[in-house]
């Protein structure tokens, strides 16, 4: 008996539509989030992650409404992130039916917010999203830094130390996106995934750069992640969730 490693399709949602960019730009429309989530639910996805990339204020209501519709039809865990800045934002999302809420930029600017959120709602529903990029040069000891604004702004924060701090403040899980890799389909940055997974006692979800099923398996076996997240390989029909599970199981990974 062992806990299964999770496969998590991710929906990047803009104004109620699923989109997917390459390196956070060049957005392609992939459809209605509730329909897509239902499809993944039927395929046996272990969770769904919903990242709201809507910029406008009106869009927030659309998001809550979409989350509500999704939670009424999809009976697997649902994580919602994007623009979560206050205790009220978290409460609204949980009340709409989210099981976990992912905090990203707000954690960088106000780390205590993570502590406050965990205290209020419990660590089990607080995910901290970390966007990391390699900053060390060839031949140097590997070092990764936290970036904000879709990978454009460096913060000077060391990614491994930052992740440890988030755990200490009460994060229940880390969603780690390697920004060099996101949308590039060349696989996760296994170095940073492993460094953070090994340094922490909480689960780490590997994200960013999945282009094939080998990449997913590597995230678990080489990156030591507890879960792997991918968007475009599932949205555009290249692979299905059952194909991903069969591939991982054949490599000795415990899946559901």
């Amino acid at each position, binding site marked *: 008996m062992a806990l299964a*490693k999770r496969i998590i399709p991710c929906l990047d949602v803009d104004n109620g539509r699923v989109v997917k960019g390459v390196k956070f730009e060049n957005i392609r429309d992939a459809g209605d989030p509730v329909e897509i989530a239902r499809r993944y*639910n039927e395929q046996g996805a272990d969770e769904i992650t919903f990242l709201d990339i809507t910029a406008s204020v009106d869009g927030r209501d659309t998001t809550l409404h979409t989350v509500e519709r999704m939670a009424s039809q999809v*009976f697997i865990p649902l994580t919602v992130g994007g623009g979560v800045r206050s205790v009220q934002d978290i409460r609204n999302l949980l009340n*709409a039916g989210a*099981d976990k809420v992912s905090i990203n930029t707000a954690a960088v600017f106000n780390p205590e917010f993570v502590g406050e959120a965990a*205290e209020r*709602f419990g660590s*089990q529903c607080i995910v901290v999203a970390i966007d990391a990029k390699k900053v060390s040069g060839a031949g140097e000891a590997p070092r990764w830094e936290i970036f904000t604004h879709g990978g454009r702004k460096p913060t000077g924060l060391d990614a491994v130390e930052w992740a440890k701090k988030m755990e200490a403040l009460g994060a229940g899980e880390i969603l780690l996106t390697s920004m060099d890799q996101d949308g590039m389909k060349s696989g996760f940055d296994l170095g940073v995934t492993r460094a953070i997974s090994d340094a922490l006692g*909480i689960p780490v979800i590997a994200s960013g750069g999945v282009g094939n099923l080998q990449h997913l398996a590597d995230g678990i076996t080489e990156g030591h992640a507890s879960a792997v997240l991918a968007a475009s390989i599932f949205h555009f029909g290249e692979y299905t969730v059952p194909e991903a599970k069969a591939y991982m199981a054949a490599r000795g990974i415990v899946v559901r």
Partner: protein
Amino acid sequence: MQTVAVIDYGMGNLHSVAKALEHVGAGKVLVTSDAAVIREADRVVFPGVGAIRDCMAEIRRLGFDSLVREVSVDRPFLGICVGMQALLDHSEENHGVDCIGLFPGQVKLFDKSTQEHGEHLKVPHMGWNEVSQAMAHPLWHDIPDQARFYFVHSYYIDAGKPGQVVGRGHYGVDFAAALADGSRFAVQFHPEKSHTHGLQLLQNFIAWDGRW
């Protein structure tokens, strides 16, 4: 039409539980903190998320400790996650909290230093794990033994009476994944988030006459 009361004591999201119950045809699902409504319901669900100290404080403030004792005797009653842990004697979370004491046993923290399959245990225990059906029960109807359910918890139940452990889980240690006693049933996992098997369990609960 039968009514199912989902006890609301202000701790966390009850939307998912209510929606899943409606989905399996539970009849009238009432998310409520009104003791009179809870007393009149045909079935009662007692969910919970978050820290046990805050949960127990609210449960006591609202008088739900005695209400839960009362309404769980004569009708089907289902505790979920922290709603299950609150039914035990005591939890070591938050430096030790006395709970309702309907099931003998202790709630303990998973040990992060435990190694299993060459890996350190990640805590919380988060994800899909197997449940072995230690004893037959109407709520296991049409659910295969060793089916996987969705768990998310850092504390586990060390049951006081082995005869009440109807479902066993394992994560570094063996723990009670499901407890039963008469009309009371309690699960550590989230049936409302456990896809087909979870919905089947809720459907079984809705069909159950409360006898075991």
